[in-house]
């Protein structure tokens, strides 16, 4: 299949950036990243600068293959990352627009690569358990209700890619932050520091300059792990609880 790729090129954070059009020959068995590899091979052969994009696992678990494809983070399909998107979902002759995450708190480093360390700082502010939980326990030593375990697991599937903030009309990071708060807070080991964690992580999220959730639901539609915005509601009530209901937090 013959495609035209309209790709965002930006030398560095100072550069203004612009779109460039490229012709590329792909086949429908390729993943989107493999198609990008082919394009980069062509560019290298022509002694042009290849397109910088992030990738690592290529199996949907690392959260690094981030690009907005035709207006949607990770492309047109729900519940997949860019590396899991295959060219058979495009048609011969298509023009495909590829842009980086456009979120102020994620400055562009080069082309499609953005700096997501704002997410790292949110985690560093409290997304961990500091109490000693000892040796790995027998799986059934601490009984956990099935529903809670399921809810915590669903939140824990977050791969931190940032598609939620990229998709959100307000560039809000609340789906990410709430998932990271809840996958710990719903379980007994994480519950101990829950109030403190909610406060710290929400404060850090605000400091990074992300927008505020308008409950549009765009994030859960574009989340490759289909994490629900009910996590945001849970974070909101934990936050209110941590301010008004707890003498442990500050």
């Amino acid at each position, binding site marked *: 299949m013959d495609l035209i790729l*309209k790709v*965002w090129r930006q030398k560095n954070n100072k550069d203004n*950036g612009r*779109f460039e059009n490229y012709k590329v020959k792909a086949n429908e068995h390729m993943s989107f990243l493999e198609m990008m590899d082919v394009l980069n091979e062509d560019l290298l052969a022509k002694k042009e600068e290849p397109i910088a994009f992030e990738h690592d696992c290529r199996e949907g678990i690392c959260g690094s293959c981030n690009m*907005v494809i*035709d*207006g*949607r983070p990770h492309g047109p399909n729900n519940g997949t990352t860019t590396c899991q998107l295959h060219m058979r979902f495009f048609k011969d002759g298509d023009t495909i*627009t590829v*842009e980086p995450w*456009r*979120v*102020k*708190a994620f*400055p562009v480093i080069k082309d499609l690569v953005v700096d997501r360390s704002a997410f790292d700082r949110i985690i560093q502010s409290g997304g961990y358990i500091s109490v000693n939980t000892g040796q790995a326990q027998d799986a059934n030593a601490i009984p956990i209700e099935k529903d809670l375990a399921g809810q915590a697991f669903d939140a824990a599937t977050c791969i931190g890619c940032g598609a939620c903030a990229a*998709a959100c*009309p*307000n*560039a*809000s990071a*609340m789906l990410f932050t709430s998932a990271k708060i809840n996958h710990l807070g719903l379980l007994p080991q994480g519950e101990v520091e829950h109030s403190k964690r909610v406060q710290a992580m*929400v*404060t850090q*999220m*605000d400091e990074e*300059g*992300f*927008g*505020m*959730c*308008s*409950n*549009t*639901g*765009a994030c859960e*539609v*574009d989340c490759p792990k289909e994490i629900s*915005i*009910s996590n*945001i*509601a*849970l*974070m*909101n*009530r*934990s*936050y*209110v609880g941590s*301010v008004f209901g707890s003498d442990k937090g*500050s």
Partner: protein
Amino acid sequence: MRWLINFLSSSLGQKIIMSLTGLFLISFLTVHLLGNLSLLSDDGGYTFNTYAYFMTHNPLIKATSYGLYFFIVLHAIQGLVIALKNRMARGANRYAVKAKGNASFSSKNMALLGTLVLAFLFIHMGDFWLRMKLDWLPTVVYEGYAEPIADLYGRVAMQFQNPLIVIAYVIGQIVLGLHLWHGFQSAFQSLGLNHPKYTPFIKGLGKAYSILVPAGFAIIPIVHFLFK
């Protein structure tokens, strides 16, 4: 006090302000509509005028009305602040291709819809509320009332003979309905109230409310224009 300021200035705190003031305005609209439906009765305005007299002279209701003015202003200012911050959070470059179908029109345009509601409120309050407050309205004398009562009904009936005003009111109500189409259920989500047990009910109630209440308001100018 520091903790309260921190809370109210945090992103989640600001959303709590939006949701609580929004829900207060929703409950106000319900009362407002129930009272205004008396504009449809055929008694030359007696029910409506005495109702308006009661609403402007009962001390408890007067006190509540100051709360209402404050909450409208707070909701509008806070909403515009949020919208501005959210715009800045995107950064200098916007997406070349806009995503379609991942969120409702209402949810993406709350600030625009809210500003239009505000514009409507200015027209609406200038037309009736302000004239009432400034004692610009002619009065009528009813038996059992010590003083003459402002004839708000007369003003309403006169204004609603003007097709442009009727159209403006209908458009205002459509805009309000769109604001509430998303806003009603959104307020519960902001407050952290989301559960498979009741969220479907809230969403259904929100849709019914955002159609029926604006429709109820819109009927009044239409009936006056066509039949009175």
